[in-house]
């Protein structure tokens, strides 16, 4: 018994898109929190710590996110730790987002001219205060466009949670496709909803980048 693809099905997809947005926000907030710590540790005045964080970034960026999802979802269950699809997804996306954001933010932190560090240190500020009062405020301006740009990758990446059975937009799409068998309409609609979430973010990122270039000519933009 096939169902037809009506506005009701479109509405179901829009409801499922809420989970895409919630999952994206969770991934971005958790991944960003870990990422900022990693980025700062990556430029900290301790060589061992810098190497460790560099290794973390290189390693995590070499693992497919889908592998992380499968590893957390199936792998941890065997140890008697119950992991549902939501927790596995948040864990996996946190790990991968943290590595990519850390690398973006490290670049921004290091793009602040090193004379700023020297000046702050010679005024008697320690590493923490220099970072907080002098470096971060300048780095945040530069970090904004690529960070917003990366949010697009996060939103698109959450579609992989469908493959471990978490019902967000992509999963809802495959489910509705199996009962209506209208792949063109269903996946066309799903793609359109993703596009409506991602495109404004892409535009914003581009706009911020342009503004940064106009507003602060004296700072070499990355």
């Amino acid at each position: 018994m096939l169902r037809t693809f009506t506005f009701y099905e479109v509405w179901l997809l829009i409801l499922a898109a809420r989970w895409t947005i919630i999952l994206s926000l969770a991934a971005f907030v958790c991944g960003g929190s870990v990422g900022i710590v990693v980025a700062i540790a990556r430029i900290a005045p301790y060589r061992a710590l810098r190497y460790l964080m560099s290794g973390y970034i290189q390693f995590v960026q070499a693992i497919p996110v889908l592998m992380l999802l499968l590893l957390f979802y199936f792998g941890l269950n065997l140890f008697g730790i119950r992991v549902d699809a939501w927790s596995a997804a948040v864990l996996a996306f946190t790990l991968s987002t943290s590595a990519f954001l850390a690398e973006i933010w490290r670049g921004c932190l290091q793009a602040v001219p090193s004379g700023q560090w020297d000046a702050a240190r010679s005024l008697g500020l320690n590493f923490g205060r220099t970072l907080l009062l002098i470096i971060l405020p300048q780095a945040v301006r530069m970090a904004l466009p690529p960070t917003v740009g990366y949010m697009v990758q996060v939103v698109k990446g959450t579609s992989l949670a469908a493959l471990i059975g978490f019902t967000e937009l992509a999963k809802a799409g495959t489910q509705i496709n199996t009962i209506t068998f209208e792949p063109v309409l269903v996946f066309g609609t799903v793609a359109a909803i993703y596009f409506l979430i991602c495109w404004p973010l892409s535009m914003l990122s581009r706009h911020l980048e342009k503004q940064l270039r106009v507003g602060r000519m004296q700072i070499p933009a990355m």
Partner: protein
Amino acid sequence: MDGPLNYTFQFGTVMDRFPELLAGAAMTIRLSAVTMVFGLLIGLVCSIGKVYGPRPVRWLVSSYVEFIRNTPFLIQLYFVFFALPNFGLRLSPDASAVIAMVVNLGAYSAEIVRAGVEAVPEGQIEAGRALGLRRLQIIRFLIVFPALKAVYPALTSQFILVLLGSSIVSAIAAEELTAVANTINSQTFRSFEIYTVVTIMYVAIVFAFRAIFTSIYAFTFARRG
């Protein structure tokens, strides 16, 4: 019995199936390599069209790039695999995977290479014309080569993402590394061991490709200035 602490690892089960995993890894590399070549070709043509082409071409390239870059690869893959048969194009999982991957990379590399093409100074092309270079020679030596050199790091990071993203095509059961891992997992239930081994294999492949890209740069771009 299976508490958190008394789980016994059995990597033996995975090692018995290692030849299958190796075949899967070979497929992953083949898929990715084909994608890199054809995706870059599409990217080159599109980026030159975007910068030097007439308005309809520019508009067409922009919509292609924007649309692909703002929708998930998984959905593009589903569209190729499930929706194209409606237009009379029935493809095998492997063919669908290659097509989706090439179309996807084409858009990303178009955007990356465009930055390099735009950075080529107008005077360089005029100088080429003044020296009597033919149109294709100008495109090859004065546009494509310097543009690729300028964007090489961004381009190779994107190529690494292609390798990682190829695991997604397991969703339509193309026989690459992740799909093989899923098959073995469903037969043996040694999930942790299998996915750990496969993760290590991906890391090894990615590190190898990073090294290859670095040496390609040293042999092609670094020498000719």
